[in-house]
């Protein structure tokens, strides 16, 4: 195609050139609203964020170029950043896969239900409609080690419940339970994909003697793999940006009116929280931008690696 154009170019006449220029302008005109939006809301913030990451900006007075100082502070100065990195990594490595597996499991169960399918699908989806702040407050209260119903029920079963959101060892697992409870949206996406798997494929596999595991492994999974990949990529990005629930849980569990990011013992301090604190509480917008650049690069790297490793992302190419 490209070669064909190159061969033709010398033959283009002046009126044709003018017409092509007009066409180009027309195309640009149609693209203009999109391009302006793209520039204002993506390119411009991105360029400014990268630039500000090399300054001492506080977003109020004139920023001065400080070279790599913010990046050096990130690596060798910020006492809390490695807490934040470890916690965010934990959430990406443990919470996101758990959420994907849980949502897939629930979707598979509800897809096979013969009676009451709509009721159960609605029930499993409902928590996703709860606002994150309200859901987190309710969860912290339910898991209150002193007065919450969860530890009371565990006590009736003879189990001494943990401190949940008040324990550095249990706070992230508790947040994971909250994420599982609220994974209705992911469940619905999986459910839609599962219901799309052609029934004749299962019939053919059964005729070939495939058991439940083999039917899942060789029929279900390849067919829904684009959706699994989509859920994983968006889940990883959401995990890297995890903020609201951690912020609310730490403050409610601490019981103090002041925000208590990371409570208990830095265990819920995530990377975006540290970014927010630096930028909005400590007047270090330049440093916050450096953190944002790092977060962007990491999210991009995760996405690229996941997409490259999973060839089935393109629905057209997925096995049917």
């Amino acid at each position, binding site marked *: 195609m*490209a070669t064909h*154009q*190159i061969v033709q*170019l010398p033959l283009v006449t002046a009126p044709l050139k003018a017409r*092509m220029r007009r066409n*180009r302008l027309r*195309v*640009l005109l149609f*693209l203009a609203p999109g*391009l*302006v939006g793209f*520039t*204002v809301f993506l*390119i*411009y913030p991105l*360029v*400014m964020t990268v630039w500000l990451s090399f300054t*001492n900006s*506080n*977003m*109020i*007075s*004139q920023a001065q170029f400080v070279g790599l*100082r*913010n990046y050096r*502070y990130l690596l060798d*100065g*910020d*006492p*809390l950043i490695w*807490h934040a990195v470890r916690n965010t990594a934990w959430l990406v490595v443990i919470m996101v896969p758990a959420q994907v597996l849980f949502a897939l499991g629930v979707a598979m169960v509800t897809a096979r239900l013969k009676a009451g399918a709509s009721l159960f699908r609605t029930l499993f989806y409902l928590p996703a409609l709860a606002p994150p702040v309200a859901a987190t407050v309710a969860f912290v209260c339910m898991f*209150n*080690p*002193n*007065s919450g119903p969860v530890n009371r029920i565990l006590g009736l079963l003879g189990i001494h419940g943990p*401190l949940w959101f*008040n*324990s*550095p060892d249990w706070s992230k697992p508790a947040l994971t339970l909250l994420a599982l409870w609220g994974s209705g949206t992911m469940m619905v996406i999986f459910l839609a994909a599962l219901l799309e798997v052609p029934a004749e494929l299962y019939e053919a596999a059964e005729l070939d003697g495939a058991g439940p595991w083999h039917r899942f492994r060789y029929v279900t999974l390849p067919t829904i793999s684009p959706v699994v990949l989509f859920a994983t990529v968006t889940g990883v990005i959401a995990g890297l940006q995890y903020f609201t629930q951690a912020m609310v849980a730490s403050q409610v*569990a*601490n*019981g*103090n*009116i002041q925000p*208590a*990011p*990371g*409570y*208990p*013992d*830095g265990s819920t301090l995530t990377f975006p929280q540290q970014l927010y*604190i630096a930028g*909005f*509480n*400590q*007047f*270090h917008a330049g*440093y916050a931008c450096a953190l944002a650049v790092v977060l962007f690069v990491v999210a991009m790297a995760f996405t690229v690696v996941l997409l490259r490793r999973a060839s089935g992302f393109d629905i057209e190419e997925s096995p049917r």
Partner: protein
Amino acid sequence: MSESRTARRTVAASLLAVTALLAAACTTGGATSKADTGADDTTPVTITFWHGLSSPHEIASVDAVLAKFHKKYPYITVKAVAAQTDDKVNQAIRGGTAPDVASSFNAANVGGWCSSGAFQDLTPDIKADHVDLSQIPKAVQSYTAFDGKRCTMPWLADTFGLYYNKKLFAKAGITSPPKTMSELAADAKKLTTFNADGSIKTAGFMPYLGAYEMLTEHLVPSWGGKWLTSDGQSNVGGDPAFAQALTWQKNLVDWFGAKKLVTFKAGMGDEFSAQNAFETGKLAMMVDGEWRNAFIKNDKADIDYGTAAVPAADGKSQLYGAGYVGGNVIGMPRGAKHPGAAWKLIKFLTTDTGALTTLADAIGNVPTTTAALDSPSLGLSKDPNFAPFLEVYKNPLTTTTPASGDGGAYLTNFGHFVEKWQSGGVPDLTAGLTAVDKQNNAALKLGQ
């Protein structure tokens, strides 16, 4: 090929042009207006005042004081906007739409506001109007200014004292509130009761830092601790008061058991609700701000209580009666459209005795000038449970957390350190505090 290259160039040029245009527009707006700086200018003007008070009775109190201001300056009308936060104020300053006057509950932001110029230096106005700053205690002056710039004034203050449950005291045979930290620890043990399973039923005192207002900043004045050196460097490792305070605190935590305290803390009830553990009798003593008196009244808590100064460290009896002070600040953001009228309002709200006593009585905070404190019209001074807080405010040894250019990052870093400390994760306290100094100083340099 050249066609597509030209198209790409056109698109790139368009993008760059828009980006450059936006970049040029991205300057923090709001240079100072010189519209009405004259003291004698009586041209009618309407100014905007943002404050953080939000409950109906607080808003009504502010409006009542503003009515007095309007009576004094009939040509200035104040449009008050309630329930504003520091984030909104900062955003308005960045966007060039700042109000003429703004107040904040969070004095930790003063350093950032002064050093960045977000709030204007009031020194020229203060000098021109001969405002006597000596009527404001030194500690209060230190959290409302930074690096030689007085960009805010104190607008009511909070002091901290010891609240104690008289009924539980009598039951335990304790006749008076503790005056030393040893007495406090001994009384706390006497007052504490346990359930059959070993969990805490009633805590004599909650030594776990981070529980309600039990914060290092409210505790360390009893040892005379100073957070920053005179040149603004972190001092928590250099000042032995911090290690001494934390050692006392950890000994008491260990007596209870950290895990038991965390479990008890989780069930203490929300700090600002009728379920507050002191108000429900589950906590016999606690360090809290003067505002708790008003909450106890408003919550109609069934509790017979008393108040006193926070006990002093053993051997530092001279510090008994002093304590921690912090509070609201008020200033003129950059971009204020009517600075002359704005200054008149700031001056009125922060130095007029009638305005201060009216508002202090209405919302139960400490008025900020000595004239207002000694004013016979201050109803709060007649309340025996409020009087100790007024005395703390007057005490020259009362201290604060001084302003820093990074929004008090030294307190955030220290907060994370003490969490590790009280859960037993710091084997060497001295080395740990020295490391915190290093971290704090690195954070202070970041904004320079």
